[in-house]
């Protein structure tokens, strides 16, 4: 029930986000809030007082079904590919090219960044990570420290799957394109790494630093050697 409710929030906010500058209009915002209030009350009824309204429940179920059969916008990476990106380094110092090929379809797009920032606030990311994303309950998203990886696909996966120290998983609440918009906003803050930097980042490299002879290289160097 909680999950379904979250979907309603996500889809209602996303609908607004995908509009032009509609979010700035007061009546749309009021509609949004009214929808949230209704959704919140629905959840509250079902949860705390244990009064199940099965008809209401079924109606919500139908809304969810409609949402999941929506066609993905072109260019959005498929989840199968994303799930194949490992979280750690691969045993045997194996190189994977897959993460370097996955970039954010919305990277650098001003509209998407703006919508991503709106989602960042409205989905309560800002309350944990700070309204300027410089950290608070959760870590800073502006700096170059990324415990779970700082390339776009890494950040996307952290939002999609959640992470063990209390970062919730948003994959059931937000459609993929919404998450990529949030990633676009985070990329715009300057602390993340470009996709081709996946192995560099895993190895802690900084752009422009000296590489001593004999230091194990990254994917490009390994390929060049061959």
């Amino acid at each position: 029930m909680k999950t379904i409710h979250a979907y309603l929030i996500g889809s209602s906010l996303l609908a607004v986000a995908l509009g032009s500058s509609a979010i700035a209009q007061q009546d749309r915002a009021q509609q949004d809030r009214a929808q949230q209030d209704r959704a919140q009350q629905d959840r509250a009824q079902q949860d705390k007082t244990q009064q199940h309204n099965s008809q209401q429940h079924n109606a919500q179920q139908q809304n969810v079904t409609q949402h999941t059969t929506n066609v993905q916008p072109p260019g959005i990476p498929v989840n199968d590919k994303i799930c194949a990106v490992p979280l750690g380094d691969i045993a045997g110092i194996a190189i994977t090219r897959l993460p370097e090929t996955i970039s954010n379809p919305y990277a650098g797009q001003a509209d998407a960044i703006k919508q991503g920032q709106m989602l960042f606030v409205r989905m309560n990311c800002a309350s944990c990570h700070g309204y300027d994303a410089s950290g608070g309950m959760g870590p800073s998203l502006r700096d170059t420290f990324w415990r779970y990886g700082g390339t776009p696909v890494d950040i996307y996966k952290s939002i999609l799957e959640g992470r063990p120290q209390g970062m919730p998983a948003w994959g059931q609440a937000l459609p993929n394109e919404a998450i990529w918009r949030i990633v676009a906003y985070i990329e715009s803050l300057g602390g993340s790494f470009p996709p081709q930097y996946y192995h560099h980042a895993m190895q802690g490299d900084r752009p422009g630093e000296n590489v001593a002879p004999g230091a194990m290289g990254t994917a490009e160097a390994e390929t060049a050697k061959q």
Partner: protein
Amino acid sequence: MSISTGGRQPRWPCRLTVLSSTLLSVAAGAAFAAATGAAEPTGHEEAGITANFAPNAPAGEWRSQARDYANTRYSPLDQINASNVNRLRVAWTFSDGALNGHEGSPLVVGDTMYLVTPFPNVAYALDLTKPGAPIKWTYQPNPTPVSIGKACCDTVNRGVAYANGKLIYNLLDDHTVAIDAKTGQEVWRTKMGNVENGETMTMAPFVVGNKVFVGNSGGEMGVQGWIAALDVETGKQLWRAYSTGSDEQVKIGPDFKPFYDWMKGKDLGVTTWPKGMWKTGAGAVWGWISYDPELNLIYYGTSNPGPRVPAQRPGLNLWTSAVFARDADTGMARWAYQFTPHDEWDYDGINENMLLDATIEGKPRKVLVHFDRNAYAYTIDRATGEVLSAKPFAYLNWSAGFDMKTGKPIVNPAMHPKPEVKLANVCPPDIGGKDWQPSSFSPHTGLVYAGIFNICMDLTDHEVAYIAGTPYDGMEMARHPAPGGNWGEFMAWDPVQGKKVWAIKEKFMTMSGALATAGDVVFYGTADGWFRAVNARTGEVLWSQKLGSGIIGQPITFLGPDKRQYVAIAAGVGGAAMVSASMDGFPPRGGSLYVFSLDGESPSRAPALLTTDGGAPAAQSDLYSFSKRR
């Protein structure tokens, strides 16, 4: 126990006041009287203020976080006193392995010290009979790391409680545990809430008899606040009282008699909210609890209302930002008083309620003294909930004054935040004129000592939706010092007159608890790591020591098995002190307990490398077991 009177000057002739006191206290008083010809003062009759120090733990021990039911945090020890405190040196230290904010204090029961760390909430027993106070046992409860991301204000723990040979404390992940004090074995473990809900637990449990009281955290997470009583022996929940909801949920019944009319009515915990919003209304119970054994009432405060955007929740928002008096056995509310009706600035009501007996306008009154986040110092009749005085103790501009007739603060009309509109210079900020860091009372001076703040905030509210497991918050803030430029201040407050007697301005936040002792010394620490001893009467700083990290815990004092007086304080900055983390000189995290004594003397000062009789290396702590030394 022993009290050394060497070097101590009598202050003025005093009469012995008969209060509840142990045989030991009386014996000590007699010893003092024999030495100096004056009787040990146990009350401050000139100003007419005293305290009940029940349950009167042995003077050399520290058996509960607040030392006594009244929450005085006062120690009757005076080996260390105003004339010799400048000889304090480190006797030994203990690094507990955790780096987050150290907000609790250790306990000393008999010859053992017990302490609990911030997440991951490891418990240690240290053997005070051996040099270096080695670890007797360690208990690792392994709370779930998910709780880390649900804690608003660092993964802190405000301390362990002791009852019937058991240590009882809360894990961040909403489990209350009891462990055998001798062995460290888990005795019981009770799940009190669900981290996936955004709920955590950080407060120190409070024991009265066979009951232990615990409460939740999550004022920024849209939880429903509660306090619960558990059976000390089994951990079974006896009752739970919510801070919002119907009278039945809040445990309000026919015995409930609030003093003010605006708190009288049916189901106010529902009707003072927009429909349904009481369910995510917070009122979390994350602070201190005190107890009056004669009235059999517990006193505790509730957090801010949720969400932290007042525009979304018109109404009084009962019973948040309030103090409850409840029957300790049944949990039924006797009275309540809301410090900040319809709180708009995150002024939680959870700060300690110190129980004192004072003569006010010629009449003896049983009162509670409470320095609220909203910067008013309250003296409240603890039998009825009547506000006897409400006076500012820190810089404030959210309120234009206090209406004694209605018992309500008068809100400055310019200080109502509106969503998306920046409100500059709101004072005090969310963390208040004083936060949860607890005060201490001295019956010698009749004063209450507290670390307070001198801070303001720029505030912008953003409307929020409730998504369980994420914050239900909406406050965007930047804090800065109030006029004067100092972030902190340590003060002595006269609760009868309602005024500051002296104050020490501090550049950094003063977020430690206070400790007042019979030696007429008061201890406190700063966020940049200075631990200070101050003359309790004059405020003169007598001694300071820089520790490894900032100090946000409470100092305690105790007698070791060697009958020597020690003072202990943890260093490990974090918690809400992090709002000032961008200050030049702000310290890194730390996690060490420092134990001081006069000249640093203790059995820890064993110089030699040891071997057993058979020639094998021995632990330094085995000093008293082996005779051979290399």
